[in-house]
């Protein structure tokens, strides 16, 4: 992870240009700067890193001694909140932060200026998606380290690999959804309430803040349609199982992938690089 970040942040401004070194170099170039922009944004740092840590501490502090059923096993709510808050942090980093950031960049004309260069839309989006993956990986690592060191909630090695896979698929799916939603939002002002309206209710019915076992069947069925529940469920499996196969759900991955494909198709149709109030 450290080496990946270091490589991404390494600049070669005076050497050959990224564009002259091929598409992959260009994606890494875009990702390095997008990551830098994101890590330097106080809003993104608070929303994506501080907020999940605070919630983890608060939830475990308040409910940590209670128990629930998770993946068929009776576990402490400490064990429940680690994957739950991890799922939440992925949604915040890959969806909320991205929607707010894209809306802002579009409104201020930055996206339009980037599209005025020879870089393809695919490279710009892939670069931003890669930066988002690194962002979620940073937060996930911090959360898992706190879970282990402070609360003694450890994850088995193969299960950690499953968490990495779920995090990757989840991040890409929510980034696609982020692009799709930002295509529907006219201004940065509308971005904040939109992401809150779409995220908060799902956190409550998708096993992020409240164990699914405590929800009515109707709410569970409703949550099943949306991607948050599938992300949280797969991460839950990793917190109570130790083998890779038992720690990841193929169904959940397929549902997340389906959301990603649908959102990407919607974005291709609806996403605009130009400010919505662009004068004619």
């Amino acid at each position, binding site marked *: 992870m450290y080496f990946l970040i270091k490589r991404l942040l390494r*600049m070669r*401004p*005076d050497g050959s*240009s*990224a*564009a*002259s070194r091929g598409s992959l170099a*260009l994606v890494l*170039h*875009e990702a390095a*700067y997008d990551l*830098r*922009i*994101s*890590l*330097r*944004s106080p809003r993104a740092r608070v929303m994506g890193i501080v907020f999940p840590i605070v919630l983890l501490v608060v939830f475990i502090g308040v409910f940590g001694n209670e128990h629930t059923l998770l993946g068929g096993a009776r576990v402490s709510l400490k064990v429940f909140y680690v994957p739950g808050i991890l799922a939440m942090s992925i949604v915040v980093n890959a969806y909320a932060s991205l929607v707010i950031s894209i809306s*802002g*960049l579009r409104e*201020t*004309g*930055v996206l*339009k*200026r*980037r*599209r*005025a*260069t*020879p*870089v*393809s839309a695919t490279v710009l989006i892939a670069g931003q998606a890669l930066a988002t993956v690194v962002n979620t990986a940073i937060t996930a690592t911090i959360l898992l380290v706190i879970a282990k060191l402070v609360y003694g909630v450890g994850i088995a090695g193969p299960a950690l690999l499953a968490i990495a896979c779920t995090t990757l698929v989840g991040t890409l799916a929510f980034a696609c959804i982020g692009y799709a939603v930002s295509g529907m939002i006219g201004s940065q002002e509308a971005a904040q309430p939109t992401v809150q309206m779409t995220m908060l209710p799902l956190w409550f019915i998708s096993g992020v803040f409240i164990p699914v076992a405590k929800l009515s069947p109707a709410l569970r069925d409703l949550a099943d349609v949306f991607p948050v529940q599938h992300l949280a469920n797969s991460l839950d499996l990793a917190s109570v199982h130790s083998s890779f196969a038992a720690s990841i759900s193929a169904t959940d991955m397929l549902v997340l992938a389906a959301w990603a494909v649908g959102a990407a198709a919607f974005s291709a149709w609806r996403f605009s*690089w*130009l*400010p919505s109030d*662009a*004068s*004619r």
Partner: protein
Amino acid sequence: MTATGLRRSLPVVFTNSLDAAAAAGGPGPTGPVIRVQGLEKRYGEHEAVRGIDLEVHRGEIFAFLGPNGAGKTTTVEILEGFRQATDGSVEVLGQDPWCAPGSWRARLGIVLQESGAEPGLTTRECVALYAGYYPAPRNIDETLALVGLSEQAAERAAKLSGGQRRRLDVALALIGDPELIFLDEPTTGFDPSARRAAWEVVEGLRRLGKTIFLTTHYMEEAERLADRIAVIASGRIVAEGTPQTLGGRQLEATQITFRVSGEADLSGLPPGLAERVQRDEGGLLRLPSTAVTADLHELSGWALARGLELQALEVSRPTLEDVYLQLTSEE
């Protein structure tokens, strides 16, 4: 950026650019860089552009003027490939901008009317980010020096002043070493000295043979920089010409204005002048003239003969702004 500092940096920065421009493909050295025929753009029922023709030649600075809502931005965005024309043909550097590949964009530099700073990045990092987008970018530090931002290289771009931010926009447009540069109101919000410094940059680009498509609301800017001007109003080109000839400006009468003390009797004026002279409400006398030397000679002879002083005497040609306002108010 001081004008002196700018002049010093120009020869150094532009040394490799002429070769690059000459080596680039596309239309020949004399062919049009932009060719637009019968361009139309409709948004539903609204006709933003109603069939315009334009040609911009290599090495030319072409100013495109028009009031807000006249179809100017729509036209520029079609030329830049951001919007699709409803009808007509558009060729920029030999390609239809709407379906041109990335390699076509590498030959363009665009200073958008409004664009914010890249959040969180320093001035130099912004330029480095954009340098990475182009296959053969200019040197980053030389480009920063060119726009006079060397001292601000390590500052966050978002903290630059308005004028400095605009200069960063120009640096971002130049970093790919483009052949054709769109400057969309590049000096809006500049103070007079910053504007003059920016003009020096544009004139430096002209000396390199770059083609520049400029939109501006400042007539002084168009007059100072442009080789040719086109004026768009209500979606149509209403005039095209050099700054000196736009809208028949060279044929318009020169105005001789003056005052005479007291209630001088104008009836003694030579008949050729008397029939043209008009007194406005403030007592200023206006004499439209197409033969200025002869008219002035007669006028001063008349004043001397009566011991009168021609106060506040001025001879003025119609300004580009007068012509522009007349052209755009007719629509």
